[in-house]
């Protein structure tokens, strides 16, 4: 068997583990456009904060590939695919034959049109992180655009370095996708107390460049926020260009619970995949680490002839916001329909909200009381009944 894995991050590595477990002899080739072994993107904010050394960013050492008998084509981009012939085309002209192919190309940072100038960076690669860390250590003023989880984590990391950043969120509150209003406001207060300048509802108009590089950012209301470095954290989008036109793609590459795409022999996993959710109600792209690991494992097992199923996407996030643990999971929006409601409890700095549909819990926000997160997640996965015994409200 010829296995080809495109992308060697969380999903790709986990698939390699799974394939080797079942097939000790098959040829595994891994293709990745980054020339060094895989590193953890999730750790980048921790690296900026100085909690993780640069060498600890790497998920595996180069010896890993050797010990697993994996042929590595690092620093090479995959450019095309012929599912009929089962061939993968590489940028250097080589053609790889495969029996089963895993597309784990991941996601790229969303880049707004105004940001294609100097002094603006994203936070997706190791180079981005090094640049941000160096700028912060040199005492530059940093503005973060985007009030999502990455933006907030970066703000906390910079604060740990002694730099007080400005956080610009285009929505009326920070973390609007992953928290409810109450939790957002509590976290915003918490950030403000620690000195982070948070501005919500701030739409960026353009970058003000001077003779010495970026001097500030002009908002759509006309005001200017001075800065020397602008970090754009506006989320990620799946990198589907390799397979577009060959496979069914919506936002990400559509897969079933076995991580199979619409074409036989081709699998997708990780941030690039759009897979069914745990309720079986729709498909979702979920760019979180545990999903990538699990999906990679499922894909690898199925590629090597085993049988495994991905239980479905359950969106979730956990982070430490300056000493305040924040966890959210599942469905957070409560539609004004019959059967939906939410219950909440607030005691001092601890806040808990459960979203209930019918009799079942389908979502939760926990601020300052994270120890309940695991049992609640288990309850959501089991169908959501019996949450009353977990949470004395």
């Amino acid at each position, binding site marked *: 068997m010829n296995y080809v894995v495109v992308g060697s991050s969380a999903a790709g590595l986990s698939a390699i583990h799974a394939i080797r477990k079942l097939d000790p002899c098959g040829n595994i080739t891994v293709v990745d456009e980054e020339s060094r072994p895989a590193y953890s993107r999730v750790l980048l904010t921790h690296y900026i904060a100085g909690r993780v050394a640069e060498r600890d960013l790497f998920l595996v050492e180069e010896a890993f590939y050797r010990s697993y008998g994996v042929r590595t084509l690092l620093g090479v981009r995959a450019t095309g695919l012929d599912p009929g012939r089962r061939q993968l085309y590489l940028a250097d002209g080589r053609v790889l034959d495969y029996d089963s192919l895993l597309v784990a190309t991941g996601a790229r940072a969303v880049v707004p049109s105004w940001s294609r100038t100097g002094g603006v960076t994203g936070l997706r690669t190791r180079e981005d992180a090094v640049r941000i860390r160096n700028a912060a250590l040199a005492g530059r003023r940093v503005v973060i655009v985007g009030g999502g989880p990455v933006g907030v984590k970066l703000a906390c990391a910079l604060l740990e370095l002694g730099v007080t950043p400005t956080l610009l969120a285009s929505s009326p509150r920070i973390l609007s996708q992953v928290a409810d209003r109450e939790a957002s406001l509590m976290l915003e207060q918490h950030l403000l107390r620690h000195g982070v300048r948070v501005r919500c509802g701030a739409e960026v108009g353009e970058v003000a460049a001077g003779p010495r590089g970026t001097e500030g950012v002009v908002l759509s209301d006309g005001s200017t926020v001075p800065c020397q470095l602008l970090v754009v954290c506006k989320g990620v989008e799946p990198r589907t260009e390799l397979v577009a036109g060959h496979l069914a793609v919506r936002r990400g590459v559509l897969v079933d*619970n076995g991580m199979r795409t619409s074409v036989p022999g081709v699998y997708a996993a990780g941030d690039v995949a759009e897979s069914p959710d745990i309720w079986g109600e729709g498909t979702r792209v979920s760019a979180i680490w545990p999903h990538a690991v699990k999906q990679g494992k*499922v894909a690898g097992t199925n590629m090597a002839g085993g049988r*495994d199923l*991905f*239980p479905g996407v359950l969106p979730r996030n956990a982070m430490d916001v300056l000493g305040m643990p924040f966890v959210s999971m599942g469905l957070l929006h409560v539609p004004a329909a019959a059967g939906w409601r939410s219950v909440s409890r607030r005691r001092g700095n601890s806040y808990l909200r459960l979203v209930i549909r019918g009799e079942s819990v389908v979502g939760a926000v926990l601020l300052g009381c994270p120890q309940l997160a695991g049992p609640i997640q*288990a309850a959501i*996965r*089991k169908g959501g009944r019996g949450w009353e015994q977990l949470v004395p409200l």
Partner: protein
Amino acid sequence: MEKFLVVYPDLCTGCRQCELACSYHHEGVYSPSLSRIRLVKFEDRCLNVPVVCSYCEKPPCEALCPTGAMSTVPEGPYALVREDRCIGCKECVHACPLGAVQLHPGSGVAMRCDLCRGDPACVKVCAAGAIRYEPLDAAVREKRRARATSLNPL
């Protein structure tokens, strides 16, 4: 009529064919450690007891499973382990009062009798008739007869 896997220990010869058949049916190999039915031998009492899931009405293994991997299938009265959900926490192993739930030594997921979806392989190979797949009243009749015989030695 609802049928049950009923075990008659004093008929059991300890040949372990049930373990081998179970292992082959579920795993494709002959390995007693992969069997859902397990034989316990008491050499001093000349007693062999095949132990298998008794399909409790309120299964503690299902109640304690944190992920919902232990479940009775809605379309039939068989219990399946949803292996994709099982995290190998061993709660079911500790919960089972019979010791009838085990962990797969290789994959680490729970193993529990699924009655071969209605056609138990162990019953077919049991030459001594110690494992039967029969309605409960047949088992109760047998038990009554055994008890009555011991009261009135003929």
